Structures are given as C-alpha cells and as structure tokens.
C-alpha cells in the first residue's frame, strides 16, 4: 500500500515537472497523412512529414485547435494510388481521422479524393501538381494548398511581361510528353499576356549536340529562350549556346526542373541569369518565413523546401478554418475553408471557393553566382489562372 502511494506521488511529481503542456479536455483532432515514406518519392515524403510535424508541434504547444490536441497519423502510400487508397481507407475506418492529406503522386490524390467523397471527409494535397485535381477532375471534398503546374508558368510569364514586355520568345523542349506539354503550357501563358512566341523546337531526349538547332534559333532572332529540358540535356543545351556566343544577348528562362542541384555545377557560368517560376524559396525575406526557416533548421538541420513549406502552411489553414467553423464537421469545415485567407511562410494565401485551389504568391528566381535569388514576387491573383472547375 505504501509502495503504491510512493508510485502515485512519483507519478504526480513527474506530471507536475512535465513542461507546461496544456491539458486537453476533449478528444484530439486526428489528421491522417498518407505520404510516400519509402521508394523514389521518399525524399519528398520526408519533407512533407517534417513540415506537418513542425506545424503540429507549434499548434499543440499554443493550446491546440478549439482546445483540442492535434494528432498526426502517418501511413506510407509508396507513391502508388492503390496503396494510398488502402491506407487512407484504414485511416478513415479504423482510426476515424477527421481529415486526410499528404498524397504526393497526383493519381493518389485523385483516388483518395474519391474515397473522401464516399466517406464524407475532406481531403487535401500539399504537393501534387497536376492541373486536373482542381480543374476538370475537381471535387467538393478536395482542397489543394500548393501551387499547381499552371501557376508556375503563369508566374514566369507575368515576370517576363514586366521585365521584357516586347520579348520575342523561342521555346525549346525535349521531344516527349512532358517536354511538349510544358512548352505548350508556357506558350499559352505567355500569349495570354501578349508575349509573342516566334518559334519552337523539340530536340530528342539525350541529344548530343544542340548546335544543329542554333541556326534555326538564330535566324528567328529571339531575345528570350524558354527551355523545359532537364538534367544533362540542359547542361548540353546551355553550354553549347555559350560556346556559340548565343547567351550574350538572350535571356534564358525555363521550367522549374530545368536547372536543379543535380546539374547546376556542371553548367557553371552557363547557368548564370537563368530565371524560373516557383512557389517557395527559403530566401523569402518576411518575418513569417524567417521564423519558419529558423525553427525548421533547428529541428531538422536543413533548409525547408517547397513541400515542407506548403505542408506546414496547410495545418495552419486547417486551424484557422476549424476555429472559424467552431467544429471539425465536414460541411462546416468546407464552408470555412472556402475563401479562407491565412498566413503561410510564402505570405498570405487564399482558398478560391470555385475550385478549392490555394491562391498563393509565386516567385521568379534567378541564378546569381550559382545561387537561386528571388528577383520578383508575383501576387497570388496574377498567377492563379482561370477557374475551370464546373462540379460545384
């Protein structure tokens, strides 16, 4: 008996000594995160997880949402829609989660979205790019908190319009589905702001020598060249253009994947001045972002990327909506999320009611001395593009 009393006392003392953790009276809010934790997308899933964990930690230590604690339940979707559906189903049926998020693969997001409709739960993505998710395959139960593919090209075109309104644009892309669709998308965005495109060329993937196309490009006399090549193709294209003195009077812009950490070193000077459109940069100079980058760095020992920032921002949107709705009921949350404006590391974002797409500020970044520097911020309203969702 005495022993029991000591144990109880010790337990009491430990509780008292624990950091001032808020005492939650009610059931926690459960967020199911179905994200790739293994396989080739595991590196994306890792930063998604980190973004959510940091936000949940901050929210919980500040008292949670409506006095309720936020709990994250992770499942590995393996970037495979079939697996994602299975894991999401488990989270909905067994764990009774209030909200689903985390999917990376666009097909996984669409599949889990349908599951959300059947189970009357809301679903979101913070990574998937495919325009269709908030476009022709939009769903009243699906919200997207990150920028879609079109916002990148719209942002880049908006920057170009501001810098070089009279630009004559030439487009280069690798000759397969991704190359052709990115070139077509940027051409559309550029033409919608009255930038003239004067030619395009599709080179086979893994071309050795791009100089065979330089004649065609030079005789068209463009002053801006857009490329959606990636990896080694970008290295050859740009270094060979440099050889032929073609970079001197031409501005080179491109898709966000054209120049990455993987090929920037091999490009050397040829990469200087390249501009692309992207949804986040750790260098964004706002108090919100500085605080986020510092906290992220302290916890995970590296700078946050786009996926971490969008995931972090999503939980704060959830918090704001749940507080506005005063509940986590699906219909009340849907209403609260529509037209919600909240603060993220990127700045203010708004959920467009018509297609559930987050309108987020976009950034034009330029390579200077081998580093990406933000050269311009494109307001969310300019980068969003038309609402093509007709289901709700």
């Amino acid at each position, binding site marked *: 008996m005495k022993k029991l009393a000591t144990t109880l006392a010790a337990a009491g003392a430990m509780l008292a000594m624990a950091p001032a953790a808020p005492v939650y009276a009610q059931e926690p809010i459960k967020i199911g995160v179905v994200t790739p934790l293994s396989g080739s997308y595991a590196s994306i899933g890792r930063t998604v997880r980190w973004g959510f964990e940091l936000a949940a930690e901050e929210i919980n230590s500040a008292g949670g949402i409506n006095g309720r604690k936020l709990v994250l339940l992770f499942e590995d979707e393996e970037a495979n829609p079939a697996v994602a559906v299975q894991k999401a189903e488990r989270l909905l049926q067994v764990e009774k989660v209030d909200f689903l998020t985390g999917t990376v693969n666009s097909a996984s997001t669409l599949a889990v979205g349908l599951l959300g409709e059947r189970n009357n739960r809301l679903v979101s993505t913070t990574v998937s790019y495919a325009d269709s998710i908030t476009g022709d395959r939009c769903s009243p139960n699906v919200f997207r908190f990150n920028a879609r593919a079109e916002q990148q090209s719209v942002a880049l075109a908006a920057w170009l319009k501001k810098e070089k309104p009279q630009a004559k644009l030439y487009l280069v892309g690798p000759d397969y589905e991704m190359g052709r669709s990115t070139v077509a998308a940027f051409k559309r965005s550029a033409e919608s702001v009255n930038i003239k495109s004067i030619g395009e060329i599709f080179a086979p993937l893994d071309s050795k020598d791009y*100089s065979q196309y*330089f004649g065609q490009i030079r005789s068209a006399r463009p002053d801006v060249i857009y490329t959606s090549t990636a990896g080694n193709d970008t290295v050859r294209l740009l270094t060979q253009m440099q050889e032929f003195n073609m970079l001197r009077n031409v501005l080179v812009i491109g898709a966000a994947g054209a120049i990455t950490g993987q090929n920037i*070193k091999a490009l050397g000077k040829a990469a200087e001045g390249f501009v692309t459109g992207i949804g986040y940069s750790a260098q964004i100079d706002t108090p919100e972002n500085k605080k986020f980058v510092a906290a992220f760095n302290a916890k995970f020992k590296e700078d946050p990327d786009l996926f971490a920032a969008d995931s972090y921002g999503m939980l704060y949107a959830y918090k704001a909506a749940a507080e506005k709705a005063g509940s986590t009921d699906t219909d009340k949350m849907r209403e609260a999320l529509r037209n919600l404006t909240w603060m993220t590391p990127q700045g203010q974002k708004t959920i467009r009611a018509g297609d559930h797409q987050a309108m987020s500020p976009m950034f034009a970044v330029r390579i200077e001395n081998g580093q990406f520097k933000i050269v311009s911020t494109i307001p969310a309203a300019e980068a969003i593009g038309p609402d093509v969702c007709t289901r709700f």
Partner: protein
Amino acid sequence: MIDADYLQFILAPQVINGLVLGVAIVLVALGLTIIFGLLDVINMSHGEFYAIGAFGALALASVGLNFWVILVLVPILMIPLAVLVERLLISRVFSTKDRHVTTLLLTFGLALIAEDVLKIIFGPNTHRPDTPISGATEIFGIIIPNYRMFLIGIGSLIIGAVAYTVYGTRLGAMVRAAAYDRNMAASLGVPVRLVYTGAFAFGVALAGIAGALLAPLYSVFPTMGRDFILLAFTVVIVGGMGSIWGALVAGLVLSQVQALASLFIPPVWTEPIVFATMIVFLMFRPQGLFGKIGHA
C-alpha cells in the same frame, strides 16, 4: 528558298556542325574499326573506354593539370588498362570456336561493369571541364566556336597520323600482314601476339583521346559511353568493318546526312535515317564501302 539568311544562319553552320560531329564520330570509330579489322573482335566496351578517357581528363584536370598535358597523358594512361583487358580477358576467349559471340558478350559485360564503376567513383551527376579554348570566330557572319575549329584541326591530324602509321610505316605493314594472314605473318617473324595487344591498346587509346577532346563539348557522365557507340558501329559497318578510309568517309557522310536532314524533318527522325542506312548496307553490301584492313 535559298536566301542569304538561310545560307548564313542555317545551311553553312549546319555543314560545319556536321563536320565537327563527323570528326568526333570518326575518332571514336577509328579505334573500333582497327580492333575489329585486326583482332576480329567486336568491342562493345569501346564506348566505355571513351567515357573512361573523358573521366580521366576530368580527374587530371581536378588535380590542376594543364589541358595539353592531359591530352597527352590520357592516351598513355589508357594503354596499361587496355593491355590488361586484352591479356587477361580477351586473349583467353580469343581462340574459342565462336569468337565473335564470346568476345562480344565479354566486352559487353565489361561495358556494364565499367559504367557502374564510373558511377560509384564519380557519382551519377553530370560534370563538365571548362573549354580550354574559349571564344568564337565569325567568318562571313557564320559563328564558329574556336574550340570546335581546333577540334576539326586536331581530329584531322590524328586521323592522318593513324592512316600514315597503318599504311605508310614498317610497323603498319606488320599490322596489316598480321591482319591478312596470322599464321603466315607469324612464320615470317612478325610477333603476332604483341601486334594484337598493341593494336588493341592503340584502339583504346584513340577512344580515350576522343573522350578527353569531346568532354568540354558534350559533358561527362557515367552513361556517356552509350552516346556514340551506336553511331560509331554504324559508321564502321557502312564504311567496311576494319577499313580506316571507310570509317572516315562513312563518318563524314553520315554526320552530314544527320545534320542536313534535321533541317527538313523532325530531329528525332535523323537517327532512324542513319540506322536505316546501316540496315540497307547490311542487307545489300555487308562488306561495306571499303574492304577490310590488310585486304585492300
């Protein structure tokens, strides 16, 4: 259609680009054709020797060596590697009944291993040495990068030197004799084994120097060996397996076909045209344009 703009911006540069590509292909194909002509070995790992030459140049440049020193060192360093491969691997299966199949499989396996070893040592990312001769020259409004002009020059020198060695020297006569009739040459006192090893090493050294020369243009990465190998094989087949002049003519003509065809048809279709040429040759003139080394 032929106006000044078209000629100046498109046609003339395209012919020059084709010439640069042609010289590059001939450099790679020369080693291939010599090894086939003399040893009767289809060297599937030739592309990887080209890659090793490029990576060797990169590694030597990173320790601070001058480009011209590297250009001399790379082929010299390739020789011991080639001797090892020839003596330890190829010579062991050389006398088997189906020499073509066994050596093809052996060198193919070697290529796979070499590619992965390069990946392990240098990582999968792309590297690129700086262009040793920068700038470009404008002739009649046609811009030619200086390094490409140098490449045409030094490539022609190397091709000339190889041709002279094979056709104009006593050493070359021994090589041709060994290729024509191995046993007769041996009985006349030609050290046939040594000639074989030497010819293999010579071919590999040529691939190495091609790698070092082309690295600044085409960049350096572990799978680069596959880049030229199909084109080089096509050149060797069309030119005549083992023919030096054949490789030269076929290399220059096919690269022009590729360069000029891309003006009129989508560029993805230029490679099929080149490979179709190869198939036509295999069907109707399998011996190629010119005869085998030692036979002509």
